[in-house]
């Protein structure tokens, strides 16, 4: 019974691990904190797994638990001193087809996203993942209207960060 649950969980996570990697990418600046966050999320997912009864898709459930973990950890860390890591400028993986100007613009935008607070990051992440407002509101546990309002505020914030 236990063994089977383990196997199920690990196979599911192996299949959908990209989601966790993407969350790590939004919330961390270097490889080692990426790995730490990945592991922490894995542990939290496994702990919560017995409560997952398959009423939602595994990936949908995963978005919720993983984002909660990232947000909680980020909160704990914020009490310490925060330093801006300038290496994060390069955290974008380069794509050859872009011209230099687009490339630079994208880098700046990724950096602006990093400046957002923990909750805003989660919303942006879900938005980038092509989730509609209904899905975003369900994952974040807020109303659909609230999600729209927040998203509009975030867009304004990002504009401000990009054009100070």
């Amino acid at each position, binding site marked *: 019974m236990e063994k089977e649950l*383990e196997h199920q969980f690990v196979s599911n996570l*192996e299949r959908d691990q990209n989601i966790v990697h993407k969350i790590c990418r939004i919330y961390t600046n270097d490889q080692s904190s990426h790995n730490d966050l990945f592991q922490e999320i894995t542990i939290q997912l496994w702990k919560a797994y*017995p409560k997952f009864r398959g009423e939602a898709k595994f990936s949908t459930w995963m978005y919720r638990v993983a984002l909660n973990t990232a947000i909680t950890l980020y909160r704990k860390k914020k009490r310490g001193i925060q330093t801006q890591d300038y290496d994060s400028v390069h955290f974008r993986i380069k794509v050859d087809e872009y011209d230099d100007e687009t490339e630079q613009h994208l880098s700046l935008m990724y950096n602006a996203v990093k400046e957002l607070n923990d909750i805003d990051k989660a919303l942006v992440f879900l938005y980038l993942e*092509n989730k509609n407002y209904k899905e975003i509101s369900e994952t974040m546990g807020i109303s659909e209207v609230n999600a729209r309002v927040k998203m509009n505020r975030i867009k304004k914030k990002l504009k401000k960060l990009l054009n100070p």
Partner: protein
Amino acid sequence: MDELDLLKKDWNRQQGNYPKLTYDQIYKMIWKRSQSIVKWIFYISVIELLFATIINIVFSGDKYWQDIEKNGLSQVITILYIVSYAITFYFIYRFYKNYKKISTTDDASTLMRNILKTRKTVKYYIAYVLISSGITVVGISGYMIVNHSNTDVNNISKYSFETIDWLKFIGVSVLVLTIFLGLIWLFYRLLYGILLKRLKKNYVELKKLEM
């Protein structure tokens, strides 16, 4: 175009650029936490031994050994040292074994058994330290009382003890010994207590999973 939509396009382009962990790598992560706690128990025990050895070397200079030899105790002390180091090494070995075992554990019930075992080993270790410190202190004071050399103090008769003085002396000694052992106990509670508590938490969580 909306700024975020540009970002979204790029975000989705990069789907293939993420690390790919294997089944086994993810599987191992589930058990990592207890492992790192047990690893710390092992490290702390080694650091403790090194620390105790350094203190021993610093404080037991030539003079210390001369005194011991003068009293004809060198054999007894050497044996005591060997025995105590042997016991300490045994515990370090056990801690190491626990650590290795938890590293390679493959299911929840074995892990639970190993967590319980680790906790027990730590408790035995603390009991050993307390009992051996107690015996050492009692032994040394007993020896000093029986064999104290009169030459150290002039006019020894001034210091002769009445029964009431003996009672006072024993009372104070017991009090000092209790405080001394209490401090050691407190120190170990702090040192290992936190780690043991976390292990217990993991154990309780695992147990919930089992049901």
